[in-house]
């Protein structure tokens, strides 16, 4: 899809202002200092990101949003790429997923209640989908109709930034029956317990959320009955694509500093990158990176244009990039040798991030099986 010269300039402005801001306010030294922080990011950082438009791109103008190019997913992917390069903390991608869901499926009242706050970063949203059993389907929580609303019971796992979120988008089943439904649940709702998890990726926060007859009013239900299946599918596509935009940034940066290391590190009287054993490994990783970038572009395009084939495209790309990310991470560690195994070196932060991203919103095997199902094999 061709963008006009004006849009391209506006996108570049968004990208470069984001990159400059990250460089100045949240370099890796700052990311490190936040590793043990309870929240995982600073509120003023999130506010400034919101001012740059990070949380408003998928939201309509009347609710304080707007894209810079008319192709909001491309715009947002540029921001997320820069964030991924520097392992940025905070619920930017996932809050956008929730804002997008409310924009596309929410009632006028829900849009009024949530969108301007989400777009401005005053409110943080996250999505509770899986029960943690490996299936990224709406399992684990069942909703029962009660007087004036619904009571939610069960547990969700691997919920991004739940500890700091204001509103949970909960994908559940209805009980009795197996119909799907979604609810916008304030994290202050009684009966809701958020349990922070220990994480492999030290730069992301994940939580388990337990629901014990947590009651929400009828108006908290997102969309009408028939919408839930399509909405959850669309949310998955959006979540996978936004996550991938960050993943590809992390892969890009990790590979960049690894190539530099291969040029700088001297052994046997010459840079190690001159040895074919190292050079060829880097060439293979470079191919994986280029192919991953090509795939992510296709995913962004499919989600932007709501292609009928988007379900399959995002799964094809997630499967490929997740496998490639792990291979790239291990290869980059190998090129660094022992130094990459130290706490002080930034290597492990990227190494951890890529493994986390590979699993979130579906590991490669899950997406491959999903593709079989899409083809009715």
């Amino acid at each position, binding site marked *: 899809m061709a963008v006009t010269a004006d849009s391209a300039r506006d996108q570049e402005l968004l990208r470069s202002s984001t990159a400059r801001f990250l460089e100045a306010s949240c370099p890796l030294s700052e990311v490190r200092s936040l590793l043990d922080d309870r929240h995982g990011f600073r509120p003023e950082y999130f506010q400034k990101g919101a001012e740059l438009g990070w949380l408003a791109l998928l939201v309509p103008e009347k609710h304080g949003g707007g894209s810079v190019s008319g192709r909001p997913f491309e715009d947002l992917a540029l921001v997320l790429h820069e964030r991924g390069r520097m392992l940025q903390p905070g619920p930017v991608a996932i809050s956008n997923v929730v804002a997008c869901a409310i924009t596309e499926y929410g009632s006028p009242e829900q849009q009024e209640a949530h969108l301007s706050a989400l777009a401005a970063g005053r409110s943080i949203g996250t999505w509770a989908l899986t029960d943690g059993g490996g299936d990224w389907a709406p399992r684990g929580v069942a909703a029962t109709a009660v007087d004036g609303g619904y009571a939610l019971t069960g547990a969700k796992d691997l919920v991004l930034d739940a500890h700091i979120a204001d509103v949970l988008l909960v994908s559940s089943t209805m009980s009795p029956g197996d119909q799907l439904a979604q609810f916008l649940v304030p994290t202050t709702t009684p009966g809701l317990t958020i349990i922070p998890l220990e994480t492999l990726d030290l730069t992301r926060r994940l939580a388990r959320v337990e629901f014990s007859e947590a009651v929400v009013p009828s108006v908290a239900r997102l969309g009408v009955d028939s919408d839930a299946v399509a909405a959850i599918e669309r949310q998955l596509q959006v979540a996978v694509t936004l996550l991938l935009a960050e993943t590809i940034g992390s892969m890009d940066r990790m590979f960049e500093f690894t190539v530099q290391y291969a040029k700088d590190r001297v052994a046997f009287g010459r840079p190690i*990158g001159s040895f074919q054993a190292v050079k060829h490994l880097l060439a293979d990783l*470079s191919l994986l990176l*280029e192919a991953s970038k*090509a795939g992510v572009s296709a995913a962004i395009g499919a989600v932007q244009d709501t292609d009928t*084939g988007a379900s399959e*495209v995002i799964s094809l790309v997630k499967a490929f990039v997740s496998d490639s990310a792990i291979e790239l991470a291990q290869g980059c560690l190998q090129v660094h040798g022992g130094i990459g195994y130290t706490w002080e070196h930034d290597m492990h932060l990227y190494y951890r991030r890529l493994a986390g991203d590979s699993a979130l919103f579906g590991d490669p095997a899950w997406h491959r099986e999903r593709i079989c199902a899409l083809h009715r*094999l």
Partner: protein
Amino acid sequence: MEPTADLDSYRERVRSWLAKNLEPTRQPRVHRVRGELPSAEHLNRQRAIQRKLFDAGYTGITWPREYGGQGLTAEHRRIFEEEAAGYALPDFAPLQNTTYAVCAPTMLAHASHEFKIRHIPAILAGDALWAQFFSEPNAGSDLAAVRTRAVRDGDHWVLTGSKVWSSGAMLADYGMCLARTDGSLPKHQGLTWFAVPTHAPGLTIRPIRESGGGEEFCEEFFDDVIVEDIDRIGEVNAGWTVATTMLGFERSAGKTQASRVGGPPGDLPADLVELARRRGLTDDGHTRQQIVRVHVGEFIQRQLGARIVDAMATNGAAGLASYLKLAEGLFTATRARITLELAGGSAVAWRAGDSVSRAAAMTYLNARVRSIAGGTNEMQRNAIGERILGLPREPSADRGKPFDDVIGQAGLS
């Protein structure tokens, strides 16, 4: 940028001409089985279609008018490719790519005006098909080490030596031949390209029987073959620059056509699904994963193709084609392993006429063609490492030394 109206009317013209003059493709193009060379009748039919296209002005769409092309934009070519997708275009395989995607573009970039006047129109008309006389028994990955000699004698050159791995040379009208014109210079500096008619006296062309039984490749022996100086391509001793251009075209040949890049995922690989069905394994988790691995690889290669085509159009870096070549080299081997695995015993022994099983066996035999032919995986990795990533070169034992001394010291002369 062409006005849109012009492009639209061009598309209309193409569409109506195609509908009147070409046959629709009867079935989706299938992968040709390696080694089965087209018959003379087949080639003549293809030449007739090529001539029709040439006469109507639909060949060499972006090539200069003075050499028989149309002098139009890449946008016009893309429109033609899109419109022609459902029609039976000429298929000179294996000489299709060597003639139109490798040799001719290289000549356009480097040959003299007189040379191009003499040869390019005949190529566009389908009268001259070209093979590459490039590799030698002792010059494969180390291509600059060719030893076929060309010695000047007045207004012609005398070639002696041998070439190998020339696809389809038995069917070609010309070979584009790299020869050493000065052995006192370092390896890369004493090389020159020539156009050699395949019927030239002293030139012997023999097919090479491949491990799969086919005979697509040939070897050539040059026994004082005379080539006129007007059939020289590029400057004397400047052949390596030409070779570099050619290698770039060779890596991307056929992989950057509009019909082969980007696009939706399409069906699961039908051959693998069929193999799984036959063995009752379509519900087997591992089998399903393997089928989709291949599907993912095919989709991602097409997306990579689109990305590389865009990048080459933007910054003209032909070195990027190494990514496509390496991707194909690696993926073909992986696909062959998975095919063999899903076929099980049926790829080892099958009833006569069982083409599915036989195809699985052939896929295994040909698993490494794409990772060796046209530049090995290792050479692509060197190119990516050195030219794209900027990693330092390995020290080499022959750099800067006269080539005659190099082969003398190695005891090879």
